């Protein structure tokens, strides 16, 4: 991990929620589903756990919710370890992937459920429910049954139900994965708005990196139970800490480079990359940082072309043996180029990012 340890420790002291060296394995197995995870989460933050299936993000969420007790480690909320506190006593609520609305209760009764369990009076909880439903813009549906609603509407009810309890921490377990594209985009905006309006800390789990980049204040990328990188979206995207993060987030080109004259890195074909480096490394460059230009240091043959309206993507096999790169450019600047053409490729050294091998 490249992130400075001191920075982390400072954050831990000041943060509202800390996951402290949490490891977990299921009884009778050796596989560590979570491996020494350390995470400080700030209040009012929109924090996302991102990673492929099986990386442990959902397990971590369940640990925060109280459905799993980790085999090692602590979770501190305002300095107090909540690991052994049962879910119903935590100021934490969850929006489940399958919504989990109570089918035998009306929408209103669903939303007031948590408040009723905690003994709130009828008038107070009805008011809180109406407020929550207003937040998700479903006030008109109070008397309906869950089976009357569409998937997206049910999702919003689940959100209202969790928010009505005014939790300190709201956990969302891939809540948008069952929705169609358009609805997803809409809900992403809604979630962001609601998070800012209520000021609740959100911990959001997803495997969709676009979603994560669009909504989060900070992202934690996980793989096989380990944290790969934690930081704001721009850090994750422009300055990935490991090859995994580089490959997982966005599209990237990873080219092998070696140190050479002047303490700088050179591609295998001898091209000077213009960045300092003393050891063998991988250099990452995003497709949109490469350009097909009349005059560039690299050259190659176009082997793939995908036109998508505003932009066009090219696959170009470099002549210096470095491999194939993806290039994305505004369509206007590259009309007329077709598969099989010999082109020259330019790059901006400032947009290169060096990773250890």
């Amino acid at each position, binding site marked *: 991990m490249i992130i400075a340890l001191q920075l982390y420790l400072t954050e831990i002291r000041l943060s509202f929620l800390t996951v402290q060296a949490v490891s977990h394995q299921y009884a009778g197995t050796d596989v560590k589903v979570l491996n020494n995870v350390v995470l400080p989460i700030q209040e009012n933050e929109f924090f996302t756990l991102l990673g492929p299936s099986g990386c442990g993000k959902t397990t971590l969420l369940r640990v925060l*919710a*109280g*459905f799993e007790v980790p085999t090692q480690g602590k979770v501190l909320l305002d300095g107090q370890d909540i690991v052994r506190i*049962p*879910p*119903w*006593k935590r100021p*934490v*609520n*969850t929006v*489940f992937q*399958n919504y*989990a609305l*109570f089918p*035998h*209760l*009306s929408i*209103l*009764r669903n939303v007031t*459920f*948590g408040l009723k*369990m*905690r003994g709130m009076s009828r008038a107070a909880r009805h008011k809180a429910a109406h407020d929550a439903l207003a937040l998700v813009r479903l006030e008109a549906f*109070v*008397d309906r049954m869950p089976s009357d609603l569409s998937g997206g509407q049910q999702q919003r009810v689940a959100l209202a*139900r*969790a928010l009505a*309890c005014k939790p300190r921490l709201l956990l969302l377990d891939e809540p948008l994965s069952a929705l169609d594209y358009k609805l997803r985009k809409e809900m992403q905006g809604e979630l962001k708005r609601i998070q800012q309006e209520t000021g609740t800390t959100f911990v959001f789990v997803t495997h969709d990196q676009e979603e994560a980049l669009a909504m989060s204040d900070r992202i934690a990328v996980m793989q096989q139970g380990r944290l790969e990188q934690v930081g704001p979206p721009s850090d994750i995207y422009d300055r990935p800490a490991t090859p995994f993060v580089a490959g997982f987030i966005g599209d990237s080109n990873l080219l092998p480079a070696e140190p050479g004259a002047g303490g700088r890195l050179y591609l295998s074909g001898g091209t000077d990359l213009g960045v300092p480096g003393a050891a063998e490394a991988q250099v990452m460059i995003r497709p949109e940082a490469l350009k097909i230009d009349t005059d560039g240091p690299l050259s190659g043959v176009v082997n793939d072309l995908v036109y998508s309206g505003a932009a066009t993507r090219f696959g170009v096999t470099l002549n210096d043996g470095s491999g194939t790169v993806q290039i994305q450019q505004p369509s206007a600047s590259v009309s007329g180029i077709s598969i099989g053409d010999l082109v020259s490729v330019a790059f901006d050294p400032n947009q290169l990012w060096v990773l250890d091998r």
Partner: protein
Amino acid sequence: MLIMVFVSLVERAPDGGVVWGRFTTVAYTQFFYEENLLGEMSFNSDYMQIYLRSILLAGFTVLATFVVGFPTAMYVAMQEPGRRALLIFFLSLPFWVNLLVRNYAWLLLLRANGLLDQALMGLWITSEPLNILYSNTAIAIGLTYSFLPLMVLPIYAAMEKFDFSLVEAAFDLGANRVQVLMHVIIPGVKGGIIAGCLLVFIPGLGSYVTPVLLGGSKSLMIGNLIEAQFAAARNWPFGAALAFVLLLMVVLAALLRALLLRHRQRVAP
């Protein structure tokens, strides 16, 4: 059933059987009234007491089988699929054995100096026979045991279909274990519970083997009463009338179930 209603309304022949063609409702009035020494009709509560006892006994059996059967069904439903099938098999195994044989087994267990007493006295837990047999306790044990599978299986079937992620959601929202049971699980398997109650109550009303064998035949149940009318008493119309009243009670119970289930569809906020 039509024959039964018909027989209940005809006149009784002096030596058993009926006189076809002569109609009277005397069988039904006999249920409530009897002729005393002066030839007047006075209210007779004997038969109603017998019916009431059978209802109470059946009701108690429903309660007892629910208390034992509900946790059992829930436990089985939470096991993994392979184990579940095995447990259900064992639960329904007694059903393959004849009712009489099952009751006799309890007789051997519960009689004074029977197997239970021998075990307890052998372990020095008690020093004298418990004398459970031929008491209401013995009847309760026998009935609960006999009818348990009928309560467990419908509840288990409902639990299998129940979405247990709702339980997690309820925990998350702040419900503790008792609240989850009352507000999420029980409403969720309500259909199974009602089915189980009916499956125990209706045959329980007519049960008379267990009260006779394990209770010492000290009280009459509806079944015994009806049987006596066709045997020693030779009063067929009265026997048919008694059976008809029993049928009415069963129909009422079934109607109640339908009402309960329909009401469930619209729960007011």
